[in-house]
């Protein structure tokens, strides 16, 4: 375990936004703001998450096989 990398203090904002705004548990119920609303604002922020088309354009072809199960 002596190879464990200690988290860099300068983890970019991108890394934080990529998780905090996009991931984490989403509960529907007695909420004031619906998730969809936040997503719309998120898009408005130009923090545009790429669509499948962009992925394909980028790679020429999408990953095949086990890579697809996570999407």
């Amino acid at each position, binding site marked *: *375990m*002596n*190879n*464990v*990398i200690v*988290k*860099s203090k300068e*983890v970019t*904002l*991108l*890394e*934080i*936004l*990529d*998780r*905090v*705004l*996009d*991931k*984490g*548990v*989403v*509960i*529907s*119920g*007695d*909420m*004031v*703001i619906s*998730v969809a*609303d*936040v*997503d719309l*604002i*998120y898009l*408005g*922020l*130009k*923090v*545009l*998450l*790429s*669509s499948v088309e*962009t*992925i394909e354009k*980028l*790679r*020429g*072809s999408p*990953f095949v*096989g*086990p*890579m697809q199960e*996570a*999407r």
Partner: protein
Amino acid sequence: MVENRQLVYLYCVADKEPKINGGNNLYSICHNGLYAVASRVEQLEFGEDGLKKKMADFEWVKTKASLHERIIERVMSGTNVIPFKFATLFNTDNSLKAMLEQYGQEFKAILRKLVNKQEWGLKIYCNPEKLKTSFSNDEAEILKIENEIKFSSVGKSYFLKKKKDELIEKTLNERINECGQESFELLKELSFEAHINRLLPREVTEREDEMVLNSAFLVHKDEVGDFHNMVDTLKMHYEGKGFLIDCTGPWPPYNFCGLSSGKGQNE
């Protein structure tokens, strides 16, 4: 006059009493052995209208998203946590408790799964020009066409050049796929769970290089050393060939807390 009520902002749910010192108006609510870490926020800021306006203010989002992360990380240092998405809001403590009641068993199952595990992120970026340079000199087919071009007429060499460019593009995509797939598969073998996430475009990453893999791994603490050795091996193999491998963590397990209802994560 608009009444400025307070709302309850939920950061995470923990399996042990979290150590919070009251900063940022934090408090915890215990219900059936689960601890929700929350704070009171102003409705003017986090209510529907307020939040819409605030989300357009990048500085505000930056500050609040970083705070969200910091608070969860602090709780995470002493206990297992289920992180919630930014701006998960409730009207009252009672409605938060009702949610804990409703999802209690599922949360407990997720927390059991998370014991002794860490989330690590791996993003791979590619500089296409550098990658092209790295393979153009050792791809036999490309070298063959180059050689043919030297001995061809102007007309024929035009078509050969086109063919060469197509071959380079094709090889480029193959190499990108290979790197992404190999890295993901090898690290997945050392992980309890693994996810591939959406790629972020350059406008978001603000990098010159294209993101070609955005992935997350839930790694057992005992395997973290091996996981990093593998990351180093991949770096040695791929960096210098036009790829950049960026491993970060440990993160709160944002990617591994999906509820069975399928609503747990926004994918």
